[in-house]
């Protein structure tokens, strides 16, 4: 079990280097065990260096940088141990334009292997979806679903949904 943990840990570390660079457009990220003698109980240290900045503890990162870094770690974990579906509720809320674009690229890539259900308010994230579901409360307090065409307009009953390539 120590072996299994270490194996997974090493694999995630390696993927995290990669996903971090993809999402930040450069820089580097390191994960380390606080106590190497005791991998099964040790806490984890995370140090990152956004492009052009210096390597530092994640506590000094900005709100948006923390989100992006968390997304990098989460996607690294998905790549090591894929799940058949992933549900992500507004994880892009704190990201600015530049970060969203790189996030969308990684998402589209991952979407080829797994199914993703994303809740989002962001136009660029919406633009990469194969299918759009609008949720509304036409009647106060009661939710209903409208299927939307990919241009964001309501799809009428006998229309075919347009699927993205």
């Amino acid at each position: 079990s120590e072996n299994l943990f270490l194996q997974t840990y090493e694999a995630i570390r390696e993927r995290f280097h990669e996903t971090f660079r993809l999402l930040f457009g450069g820089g580097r990220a390191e994960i380390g065990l606080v106590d190497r003698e005791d991998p099964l109980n040790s806490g984890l240290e995370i140090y990152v260096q956004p492009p052009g900045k210096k390597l530092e503890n994640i506590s000094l990162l900005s709100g948006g940088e923390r989100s992006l870094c968390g997304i990098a770690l989460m996607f690294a974990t998905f790549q090591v141990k894929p799940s058949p579906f992933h549900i992500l509720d507004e994880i892009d809320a704190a990201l600015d334009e530049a970060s969203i674009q790189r996030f969308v690229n990684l998402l589209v890539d991952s979407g080829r292997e797994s199914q993703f259900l994303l809740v989002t308010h962001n136009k660029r994230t919406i633009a990469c979806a194969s299918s759009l579901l609008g949720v509304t409360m036409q009647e106060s307090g009661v939710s209903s679903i409208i299927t939307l065409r990919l241009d964001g307009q309501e799809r009428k009953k006998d229309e075919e949904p347009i699927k993205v390539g």
Partner: protein
Amino acid sequence: GFLKRIEMVGFKSFADRTSIEFVDGITALLGPNGCGKSNIVDAIKWVLGEQSVRNMRAERMEDVIFGGSEKRKALSAAEVTITITNDRGLLEVERPEIAIKRRIFRDGESEYFLNGSPARLKEIRELFHDTGIGKSAYSVMEQGRIDQVLSNKPEERRCLFEEAA
């Protein structure tokens, strides 16, 4: 794909019977604040056996039953059915599709059904053994929780890794 369809009635703000079809790749859920998007995420967690009321943003499990609106009365039960395709033989069964249903009445316990027949939560969990589903920290990232992926406590950061291992 994996998630094929979800149907719900009486679950949180979904008072009326609602059916949602899922596609491969990326599906985006959109709509204004409070219209029901995260409630759909809750429904998926719930039907797959979520036990913790806090993870459902509730105080008692019966809070997930539609409690009424200004114009409508509360309902007495909530029911969610999820249909999952077994196309990669991921689940250890012979069927191409399985349907899981969970129902709760006020002042009642949850009842589970597997392909229409009563089942226990234990049987449903065994179905998903080793696919990564039903570990709620892993295939569902709740709204506002992306920050906790990089928890400030080194010991907490292990959780994601341990779930993957």
